[in-house]
């Protein structure tokens, strides 16, 4: 006989409070990253050159900027999930851990936001600085 409430059993969260959600999100984003990162690598390697004009023209194509937006979003999400586990494993002490995770989250949003903004500027043809 289990002493857990029916709701507790359904949620399956246990003492960690969030169950398998983190683990599952890591898997889902990793599956999405397989085609996305391979597309990115293949596109860059098949460009005739990596000079400014070629790269900018390529990134400004609707299909490139759209897929680049998706790629960077999932990359940042997956990176945040992964590095959070590293911090949770090696940073001890509740205070330091919470502050590190907070900084990690802010940094990922900053990098993601800056990357998305850069892609959008290229996609919508904003010229230079």
């Amino acid at each position: 006989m289990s002493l857990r409430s029916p709701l507790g059993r359904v949620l399956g969260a246990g003492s960690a409070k969030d169950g398998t959600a983190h683990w599952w999100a890591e898997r889902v984003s990793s599956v999405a990253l397989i085609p996305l990162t391979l597309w990115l690598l293949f596109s860059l390697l098949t460009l005739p050159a990596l000079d400014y004009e070629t790269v900018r023209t390529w990134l400004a194509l609707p299909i490139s900027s759209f897929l680049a937006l998706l790629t960077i979003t999932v990359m940042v999400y997956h990176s945040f999930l992964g590095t959070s586990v590293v911090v949770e494993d090696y940073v001890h002490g509740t205070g330091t851990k919470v502050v590190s995770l907070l900084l990690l989250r802010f940094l990922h949003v900053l990098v993601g936001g800056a990357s998305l903004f850069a892609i959008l500027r290229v996609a919508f043809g904003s010229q230079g600085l």
Partner: protein
Amino acid sequence: MPARPRPLSPHLQVYRWPISMALSILHRITGVGLALGLLAFCTWLMAIAGGEQSYDMVMRVIASPPGLLVLLGWTFSFFYHLMSGVRHLFWDSGRGFERAQRVASGWFVVGGSMVLTLCVGWVLWRGAHS
């Protein structure tokens, strides 16, 4: 409190390193490396948006010997993390845990990521010298 410290369970340093353990650690290291690579990728994207001057500056840094070395590291990290990640996804289905299978898939991931890294290096080298 006990009079003398309780015995501890054996820790990492007393084990011979099986390949699964080394590769698990490498998966995490390459993951952290790729997270740092995200910073460089973001810089590269901002440089494209910033115009020709900023782009050329970033590309000069990448094309320098230390830049290329780091790029090589990121390329290997990418392929290793990708292949090792697929290995983990396969494991999630509950298969491939026999000793021989584990060792074989481990060496396949190591060899495969090295070969793919060399392929990318060759494509870039050929592009730079044509």
